[in-house]
C-alpha cells in the first residue's frame, strides 16, 4: 500500500464514520455517554480538512496529520486511543514508500491502544477486535471475519473503559469502539480489494 492508496483507505474510513455516526452514538448510549459517533465524525472531518489544507508527502506525514487531528478533535477516551494508533503508525512507516509489513503496522497500533488504555483481551474494548485482526492478518482476513470480530464483543462484560460502570448491563451490546475499529479494518480491506 502506497501513499495514494493509504489516503484512499483513510478517506473511506472517514466516510464510513460519517455514514454510521448516529448508529455509533446509539451503540454508546446504553453503555457509555452516547457521543462516540459524533465525536469520531468531528475528528474525521477535522482530519479531512487538515489533509486538504496540507497534502502529506509521505506515509509518515499522512498518519501523523490524521493522528494529531483525531487527538485534538475527538476528545473523551477515543481521541487519545485513535490518536495513539495513528502516531504509532507514523512511527512504524518512517522512511517507507509503501507499507512494507501491514501486520507489523497494525500490531504497532494495537500496542499503542493497549499501552494507552491498559486493557487486555476480553474486557469489551477496541482491543477485542484489534487483537484478532492482527492475528488473522497474516493468513488473510475477510470482511465477514471483521464483522464476526465486532459482533463477538456483544456477549462480553465490560471491565475496562466507561462501559465498566454498567458492568453486567453491558452484556448484549456491541462495543462502540470495536464497531468503529471494524469500520477502520473494513475500509482497509475494501481498499486493497
Amino acid at each position, binding site marked *: 500500500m502506497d501513499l495514494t492508496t493509504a489516503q484512499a483507505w483513510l478517506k473511506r474510513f472517514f466516510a464510513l464514520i460519517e455514514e454510521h455516526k448516529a448508529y455509533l452514538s446509539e451503540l454508546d448510549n446504553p453503555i457509555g455517554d452516547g457521543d462516540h459517533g459524533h465525536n469520531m465524525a468531528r475528528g474525521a472531518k477535522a482530519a479531512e480538512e487538515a489533509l486538504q489544507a496540507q497534502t502529506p508527502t509521505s506515509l509518515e506525514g499522512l498518519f501523523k496529520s490524521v493522528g*494529531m487531528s483525531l*487527538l*485534538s*478533535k*475527538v*476528545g*473523551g*477516551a477515543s*481521541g*487519545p*486511543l485513535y*490518536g*495513539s494508533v495513528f502516531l504509532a503508525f507514523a512511527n512504524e512507516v518512517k522512511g517507507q514508500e509503501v507499507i512494507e509489513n501491514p501486520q507489523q503496522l497494525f500490531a504497532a497500533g494495537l500496542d499503542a491502544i493497549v499501552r*494507552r*488504555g491498559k486493557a487486555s483481551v476480553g474486557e469489551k474494548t477496541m482491543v477485542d477486535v484489534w487483537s484478532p485482526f492482527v492475528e488473522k492478518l497474516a493468513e488473510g482476513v475477510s470482511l465477514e471475519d471483521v464483522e464476526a470480530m465486532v459482533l463477538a464483543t456483544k456477549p462480553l462484560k465490560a471491565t*475496562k*473503559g*466507561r462501559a*465498566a*460502570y454498567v458492568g453486567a448491563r453491558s452484556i448484549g451490546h456491541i462495543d462502540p469502539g470495536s464497531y468503529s475499529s471494524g469500520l477502520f479494518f473494513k475500509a482497509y480491506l475494501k481498499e486493497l480489494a
Partner: protein
Amino acid sequence: MKKILNAPQDVVEEMMQGMAEAHKDIVHRVGSTRVLARNYEGAGKVGLISGGGSGHEPTHAGFVGQGMLSAAVFGDVFTSPTPDQVYEAVKAADKGAGVFMVIKNYTGDVLNFEMAKDMAEAEGIDVDFCITKDDIAVEDSLYSDGQRGVAGTIFVHKILGYHAEKGASLKELKALSEKLLPEIKTIGLALAPAIVPEQGKPGFELADDEIEFGIGIHGEPGYQRVKLQPSQAMAKEIYDKLSKALQLQAGDDVVVLVNGMGGTPLMEQYVFVNDVLELLKKDNVSAAKTMVGDYMTSIEMAGLSLTLMKLKDKAWLDALNAPVDTIAW
C-alpha cells in the same frame, strides 16, 4: 434553562477570555489555546499544572499563580481537555526543570494527560504526575475507574505548589504527592442537580424533599438517597465515614474543607461547618485549619462536599498557610 450566556457552545471560550481580562495582573491566556498561565515566570522551577473539564470554577484556573499552579488547561464543560491542549499547558509551564501534572481520576482526564506526557517527553520535557482520588463515596463511578478526584485536589495543588516554588525537583514532588494523597478524603452531597449549558437539562433528578449522599462533581450517582434532614445529621453521616477512612483518633490534627458545589449559599455552608467542627471537638480531633466556600463547584449544583486531610506532617499546614498570588485561593 436560565443562564447568563451568549451561546451555550461559547461558554468556555468566553469564560476564559473573561478570566484572562479580569485578572490580567495574575494570569494570561497562552495564544488561542485552552490554557491560562501565570504571569510570574518561576524560572528554573518545576512547573505545576492541572486541569480538566470546565464547570468547576474556580478550579482550576483560580489556583494559577505564584506559589500554586503554573498553568491550567480547560476542557469543555464536564469534558476532559484534549492532549494537544494539555501539551500546550506543559509547554507553558516548563521553565527548564520539568513539569508535574495533578490529574483528577477520571478515565478521560487520565488518558489525555498521559498522552500529553508522551508528547512532551518526545520533545525533551520531563513530565511526571499524580492522580487524585479523594472521593471515597463510591468505588467505581460513571466517569472513573476507581475513586474520583474531587475537592481535596486543591490541597494537592497548594502543597505541591508551595514546594515547587521552594525549588523542589520533579522526583521530590512525586514523593510528596504519594505521602499526601492517602491522607485526603472527601464525600459530597447534593440537593439539586446542575445543568450543562449545551445539554440544557438537569444531569439527574432529585425530588424536592430528597438529597443524595456521595454525589460526584459531574452529578455522578452517589451511594444513598434519603429525605432531606437537618444539617447536623448530614454532617454526621459524612464525617463518620471520613473519620473511619482516615482512622482519626483523639489528638489528631486535621484540615477541614467545606466546599460549596455552586448553588449552595455560604450561609448554609457555615451552618454545616459548624456541625462538622462540633463533631471533631467531640472526638478530640483538632481542626488546625478550616476552609469554607466554593472551591470546586459543579456549575449550579446545590450541595457541598466535606474534605478532611489528616496532618501526618505538620509542615503540610505551613505549606497550606503560605501566601499565594492567585485568583481564588
